[in-house]
Each structure stands twice: as structure tokens, then as C-alpha cells.
């Protein structure tokens, strides 16, 4: 049976800068100029203080493993087992991603708070996804 395609994102006006950043192999997230908080996902105001004085900025792409599941029964486009993770960026925000590069993932190979780093996955000419690897 043929595998269905991986679900891919479609950018919206307020998220385009984020997805364009990934295409350029930069992780760009927004920071509030009033309260200094970084936040994710993109939107045209700060979800902490509701200021509209916000701007995208390139960040390190480094963080730590916050939480995860090892999907043994998951999306048919993926080869199970695979890791769906929440990564906490060094700048503060959390985002969902996959941890790649771990053969046959087990909890032992994925310790709490493990250091991780972004890998830019050019899925096709239009979409680059943020994936993370253990460092």
C-alpha cells in the first residue's frame, strides 16, 4: 500500500515570515518589544501583554527536550516508532517538532531536558519543516 503524503503546512498572512525564515534556514520567531517575551506560534500581537509592538527575529535554534511521545501507532506517512516532541527553545517558547536521528527511539535514548538543535528539513521547494536532533 502506498504511503499517504506527510501533512504539510500552508502559511497564512501572519505566519508567512516564519515559514519564509525556515526556507532560508533561519528560525525566526516573534518578540514583544514592550515586555521582551519571545512567543510562538506567530501572531501579530504579544499573547502575554497583548502589545502589538512585536517583531520577528532570528533565534539560536537551540533548546531542550521538554516532553514527548514515542508514536508506535501514528500517522501513516511516518515510519513508526517516531518521536513527536515539545522543544523548549533557549529563548523561552515551546514548539512541537520531531526528534530525528534516533534509531529505534526508546525513553532511554531520550532523556529529560536533553539538549537539542534545529535541523532544517527541505521537504520540497516550497516547504521547510523545523526538525530537531539531540546534540
Amino acid at each position, binding site marked *: 500500500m502506498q504511503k499517504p503524503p506527510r501533512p504539510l503546512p500552508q502559511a497564512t498572512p501572519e505566519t508567512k515570515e516564519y515559514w519564509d525564515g525556515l526556507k532560508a534556514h533561519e528560525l525566526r520567531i516573534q518578540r514583544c518589544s514592550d515586555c521582551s517575551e519571545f512567543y510562538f506560534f506567530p501572531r501579530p500581537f504579544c499573547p502575554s501583554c497583548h502589545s502589538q509592538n512585536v517583531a520577528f527575529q532570528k533565534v539560536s535554534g537551540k533548546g531542550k527536550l521538554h516532553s*514527548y511521545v514515542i508514536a508506535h501507532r501514528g500517522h501513516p506517512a511516518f515510519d513508526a516508532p517516531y518521536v513527536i516532541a515539545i522543544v523548549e527553545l533557549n529563548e523561552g517558547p515551546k514548539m512541537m517538532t520531531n526528534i530525528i536521528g534516533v534509531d529505534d527511539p526508546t525513553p532511554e535514548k531520550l532523556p529529560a*531536558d536533553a539538549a537539542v538543535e534545529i535541523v532544517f528539513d527541505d521537504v520540497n521547494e516550497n516547504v521547510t519543516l523545523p526538525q530537531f536532533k539531540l546534540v
Partner: protein
Amino acid sequence: MADSTALRHKTAIVGAAETNTVGVLPDYSQLQLHAESAFNAVADAGLKMSDIDGVASVAPAQLTEYLGIMPRWVDGTSVGGCSFLIHVGHAAAAIAAGYADTVLITHGESGRSRVGVGGFGGGASTIGGQFEAPFGVAGPPTMFSVPIVHHMKKFGTTEEQLAAVSVATRAWAVKNPRAMMRDPITVDDVLSSRIIAWPMHLLNCCLVTDGGGALVMVSEERARDFPKKPVYLLGRGENTAHQGISSMRDMSVWSGAAEVTGPEAFRMAGLGPKDMDHAMFYDAFSHTPMYALEALGFVGPGESGPYMAEMHTAPGGDFPMNTNGGGLSYTHTGMYGMFAIQEAVAQLRGESGERQIDGIETSIVHAPGGMFSATATLILGNQ
């Protein structure tokens, strides 16, 4: 802040029923499940469908069309499994305001057989389509379960403690002839069942079934004139906080419950956790009721794992919880909250048969919608 205590004990559930059976029901469309439970609940209240003048449902237009009724008050709140708890709270306010006299709340879901059900899904440009779907989330096991590893890391919660939730709940299902899963299980059985999304094994995950349930609510003044013992609404709380699990504010705490619905419901009821004789804490997965126990103040932060392992909530324990067998072992249609209310009502009426709690006067019902996304709490009593 405006005070909801004026609505304490002002309305009551006077009709409550489920579909004739629950489980695998390929011969029912989803709307039939709504309708059967609706007719059963109306009959339980000694009423006719034409007596209904208020309707709350996740799909009220479809329901009124199907039932052929013309309510003068309607609520279509649809935020997942806790929607029905929110409907109860809204109905209480509507009845007190004079918007309706006799409210019907229904649930029907062909969650397993998927007869007469639309497709799942949002588009690729939704927030979920952009920031979760590309990473292979595939339904609740890979979404709802995401926070628990953070809880395990922070508090030392173990897989054995998660398994204990399933064991305690199954022990209640053994006493429920309508439950889908009735064989006793052990912690080892849970841990040796296949992994769905580590740390969740098959027996840490709720069932997928078909079924329905419905309620009839009226004012406290009218409630004494019905055939069954009234079950009064003492307190309620509701909240939405996020949609996708990746936006959960703190993965170690059910914030909607801790900050909003618990305090709101207890304040309205004038009661606290120690006053609760019984609990129905929605168990989509083993960790869901653990987060509820902590967020609502029944145990301290991080204490739910050891607490569950001590079997306080199992038959014979000092805090009976999920006495129908829960979503884990009784039934889980997708939006299970209605069944949690049904069991609380049955216990408060003394109708729970072999699993009846003696001397019960209060019950707390608590549920999430989506992935800890929405939250609702009800405190019910029979005095």
C-alpha cells in the same frame, strides 16, 4: 467579580438516561443515538418531547430538525468532551433567567462505527495544520499524551502509577454489566499491553465506542414534582485555554482546572474537595484524571501518581472515582463527558446497583474538551 452563588441549588436534573445499549452499534446513525437517549431521558422525567422548550447540544440545529421540536432557548457550545458539563451550567442560568423552563441536553456519537458522521480534520492553513499536523500527530494518543513525560520528569511519576489508574478503573467496570471491558487487570497487564504512544500502552487509552446520553433540567421549585429524586446543580465552572496541545501553558498542570473551573465551581457550591463523596474525572488516558486530582486540590502537585498507586479510588477505597468503569473500561464515544454526568446522577439517585456508593450526597464531575483545551467542572448534590 460577579458572583454565581445565587444559582447554587436553583436548578436540578430530573431526567437522565443513556441509549439502550452502548458499545459497538453499527445499526445506529449518530442522530439516532442522540434521539434514543433524548426520548429515554424525557421519559425518565415523566415528560413528553413536546414539553421541551430549551435545547443544548453540540449540534442543536441538526437535533431540533431530527426531533421536530422548536425550542425557545438553544446552546450549541461544542468544545469537545466537556461540552455537556458546560451545557448544564448554561442551562441553569437560562432557566433562572426565564429563557427556558424545561431543557433537554443530548449527546450521541457514532465514534466507533462512524455512521452518519462527517469527516475529521482542519485545513493545512489552520494553526493545527501548520504547527502540529506536519509532525505526525495522529489523533488523541499522540496529542493528549504529550504532556505526561514532562510530569514524569518533574515529579517522578512512573509508568506503574499510570497503570494503576487503569487497574482501579477496571475494578469498577467489573461491577458494571454495561461496561465493554469487564475482566480484572493488573499493573503488569497494562505495562505488557502494546505501546501506542509511549508512555501510553493500549490499556492506558480509552475505548472507542458508540452511544449517547441525555439530561432534562428544570428549576428547583419544579424539581420535586418529577418521578425521580432531583439531582441539584450546586456549582459549575468552564474555561477554554488553547486548541493545540503544543500551546498548553504548563505541561505539568491542568491550568484551566486549577485556575478557573475548580475555584469557580467550589466557590459557587460553597464546598471544597473534602466535601466530595464521589468523583467522575474524565479518563481519556490514564494521566487525565491524575491531572484533575492535582488541579482541583484533591492531592498536591505531583502527588497523584503515588495516590493512584495506593488505590484510594478503587472499590473499597476512601475516594470512589469513575465508578462506571470510565472511558478506559466502560465506554468512550469520543466526547465522554455526558457519561460522566450520567454516572454521577445515577449514584446520587441510588441507581448504581452493585457499584452504588452508600450515603453519597455530593459528586464532582470534571472533564476536558480537546487536548486539555477546554475544561468544565460540575458539583452535583441530592440534598
